[in-house]
């Protein structure tokens, strides 16, 4: 079953995958992306991170990304869970789980969803390092990763 959630609590990837697949024996493949918090970014040790978002818009943006993935590939379910609030290294930040009958669609759609999420969903990360707090800078590589999905040959 499709679903997008934004929450402060940790999540369990296996539980989410089980819920995604429950009651649908046609599913033959599930691809998941799990984003974790690293303890090093741009050369500095990061003690913790705080994620801010735009309540209301975030859920709409995630739902729109899921709808776009469903329009591009034959999928049986897409689930996105994204955390906000304060996180520490090794904790999960985001889960994208995509189910389909065969693996090809699920692999491509999963990568598409996380690429679009990174440039279109209104989340912002602020890191705490020994030198103080700093907002994480937008990466050009994320925009390039998103742009390659504009090429119809990729989908």
């Amino acid at each position: 079953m499709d679903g997008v959630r934004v929450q402060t609590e940790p999540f369990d990837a296996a539980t989410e995958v089980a819920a995604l697949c429950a009651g649908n024996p046609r599913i033959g493949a599930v691809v998941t992306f799990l984003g974790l918090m690293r303890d090093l970014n741009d050369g500095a040790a990061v003690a913790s991170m705080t994620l801010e978002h735009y309540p209301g818009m975030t859920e709409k943006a995630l739902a729109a990304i899921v709808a776009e993935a469903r329009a591009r590939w034959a999928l049986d379910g897409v689930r996105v869970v994204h955390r906000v609030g304060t996180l520490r290294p090794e904790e999960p930040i985001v889960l994208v789980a995509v189910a389909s009958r065969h693996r090809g669609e699920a692999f491509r759609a999963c990568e598409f969803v996380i690429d679009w999420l990174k440039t279109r969903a209104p989340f912002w990360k602020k890191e705490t390092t020994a030198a103080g707090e700093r907002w994480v800078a937008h990466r050009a590589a994320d925009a390039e990763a998103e742009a390659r999905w504009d090429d119809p040959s990729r989908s």
Partner: protein
Amino acid sequence: MIRLRYFASLRERLGVDEEALALPPGVADVAAVRALLCRRGGAWAEALAESQPVLCAVNQGMARPGDAVADGDEVAFFPPVTGG
């Protein structure tokens, strides 16, 4: 009136998270609202200058500079997103 909202580093630079604003005559799109806010000077002029990578949403959907803004809309400005 429109409801203006600011997020993340932009909210911190401006020192405000939201406000209500009466739209002056002739201010009818995103670019005009941004220019209006810039004319407040100081941190506003710096943070919202055209050279700054600022994104905008109207009624909680991503918007372009030419997109219309009208009474009752919620207009948000924020830096490029960094989730995932």
